[in-house]
């Protein structure tokens, strides 16, 4: 039996009532609007993030979901200290991010799919040398870490080629290497798989899972690709119009947002939509193939009836793709 006391888990990321408002120019389009704006500058305040609170424990892998402009990137920038919060408090790795102390910066990293830090005209190894110097990593240690990370990322010769000659996938992997050379314990990843093909996405994904396991790093990930979230994040934060809408397990979110499951049928002969009215909502009928939405609690009963009543060749049950669900709910304003 193990009588050792459980270690007290301290949150490594803590946001309390976090808010950020921007002042933006209110400008009409066209020349007249430009002139009017030039003479009489009018500004309006936009709340990008409002009263967001959550905490993340060391080693957690958390997905950060939300539509474009929901406030994900603004939140990430406050967590990394790039911008000052307008209200509320943030604490990451025991530090206040916007002070940007060396002790804090040495523990975190930010990877952005749309921005790059590698020097365009030089091979990644030159950028890595700069990073090693800046983070004060001795040459031998830096070589060891580069080898280790390169192996995990399946990077080899690419590190010696000018960055501009690399493919998008290779470049992203090299960016990850540069961002992780100082072995940060908190990773903020903003769309790290953006624009990558399916294979490259999968490789980045398995690398991130591997890194999280091997170094016990905490990861907060935003992604447009639901596959990234479902593969990596047991817990998700869902943000909508600057407010935290959901914080919990991905499973629960799916159940809450998608009380129905999708049933695909292949029939021996085509049937009209009215034939399925008593089983569930018809999503689509294409010849002999039918897609139905059936509430979770009646699933077993209805599938039994379908099999008994109709001439079914094949039947499968799945969750509708989560991006569809979220997209639909945001679209309908059901989350407001």
């Amino acid at each position, binding site marked *: 039996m193990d009588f050792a006391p459980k270690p007290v888990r301290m949150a490594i990321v803590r946001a309390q009532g976090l808010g950020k408002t921007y002042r933006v120019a209110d400008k009409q389009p066209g020349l007249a609007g430009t002139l009017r704006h030039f003479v009489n500058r009018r500004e309006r305040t936009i709340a990008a993030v409002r009263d967001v609170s959550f905490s993340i424990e060391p080693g957690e892998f958390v997905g950060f979901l939300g539509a474009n402009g929901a406030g994900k990137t603004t939140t990430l920038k406050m967590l990394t200290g790039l911008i000052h919060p307008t209200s509320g408090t943030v604490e990451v790795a025991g530090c206040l991010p916007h002070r940007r102390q060396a002790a804090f910066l040495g523990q975190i990293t930010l990877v952005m799919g749309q*921005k790059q830090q590698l*020097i365009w005209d030089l091979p990644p190894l030159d950028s890595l040398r700069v990073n090693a110097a800046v983070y004060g990593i001795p040459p031998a240690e830096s070589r060891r870490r580069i080898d280790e990370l390169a192996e995990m990322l399946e990077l080899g010769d690419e590190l010696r080629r000018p960055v501009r000659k690399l493919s998008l996938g290779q470049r992203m992997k090299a960016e990850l290497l540069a961002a992780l050379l100082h072995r940060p314990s908190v990773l903020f990843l903003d769309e790290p798989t953006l624009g990558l093909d399916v294979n490259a996405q999968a490789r980045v994904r398995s690398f991130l899972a591997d890194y999280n396991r091997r170094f016990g790093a905490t990861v907060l990930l935003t992604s447009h690709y639901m596959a990234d979230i479902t593969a990596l994040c047991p817990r998700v934060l869902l943000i909508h119009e600057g407010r935290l809408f959901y914080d919990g397990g991905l499973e629960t979110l799916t159940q809450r947002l998608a009380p129905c499951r999708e049933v695909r049928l292949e029939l021996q002969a085509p049937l009209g939509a009215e034939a399925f009215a008593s089983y569930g909502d018809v999503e689509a009928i294409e010849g002999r193939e039918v897609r139905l939405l059936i509430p979770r609690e009646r699933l077993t009963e209805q599938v039994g009836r379908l099999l008994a009543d109709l001439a079914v060749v094949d039947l499968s049950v799945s969750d509708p793709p989560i991006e569809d669900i979220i997209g639909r709910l945001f679209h309908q304003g059901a989350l407001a």
Partner: protein
Amino acid sequence: MGRYFSTLRIFWIASLTAELEYQANFLIELVATAGNLVGSIFVLSLFYGRGQSLGGWSWEGALVVLGVYTLLEGVTSTLLQPNLSTIVAHVRTGSLDFVLLKPIDSQFWLSARTFSPWGLPGIALGAGLIGYAAWKAGASPAPLTLLAAALMLVASLLILYSLWFVLAASSIWFVKIWNATEVLRSVLVAGRFPVSAFPAGLRAFFTFVVPVAFLTTVPAEAILGRASGPWLLAGGIVAAGSLAVSRWFWQFALRFYTSASS
């Protein structure tokens, strides 16, 4: 501190590697700088043609001022210009984020990140002209004179740097600031002549508003061994003040940085 030196070494090796791909540039820059210098000397010689002088300065003394100016131009092309344009690009594309996330002083990174060897001919020519003209003017290389000269040259570089950096930092609000740098450049051209050559109003402007006087005239006085204590002190104070203002201004500007959208 050691980390800053090793970082600087790696910064400059990386920039040299990138720049040395274009060897022809070196020759072009050498010819251009030499041509510029010959032109400036010719203009200066016009003032001295008929035994006149410029603001009470001898021909050799005026050449020392021109030498200091050429040296500053060289430093501008080597360090200030390339780094300034990088700061503006960082703000425009949002890659300033990566600089701010490094555990190293962001002003240091932005000011020292790139090093362009193309200004070196200017620095060499400037130094050569200073040496030659000072020797012709009969300046004595006494240790105290050399020390004062070195101090005033450093002060002049710090003032110039601070002016450029504050301008570059203002790109956080204005993003495009090329016009402003052009204005600064043309004002600094005044530094080719001793400040006493200008009418009283301009002289005050170049001493107290844009400290052009401290950029070339005061160092030249020190090189010629005629700098008075109060001017040396003033030079030191202006330099330290400018540097402090540039640091404060950068921290202030960062509070308004919103980082280009991603």
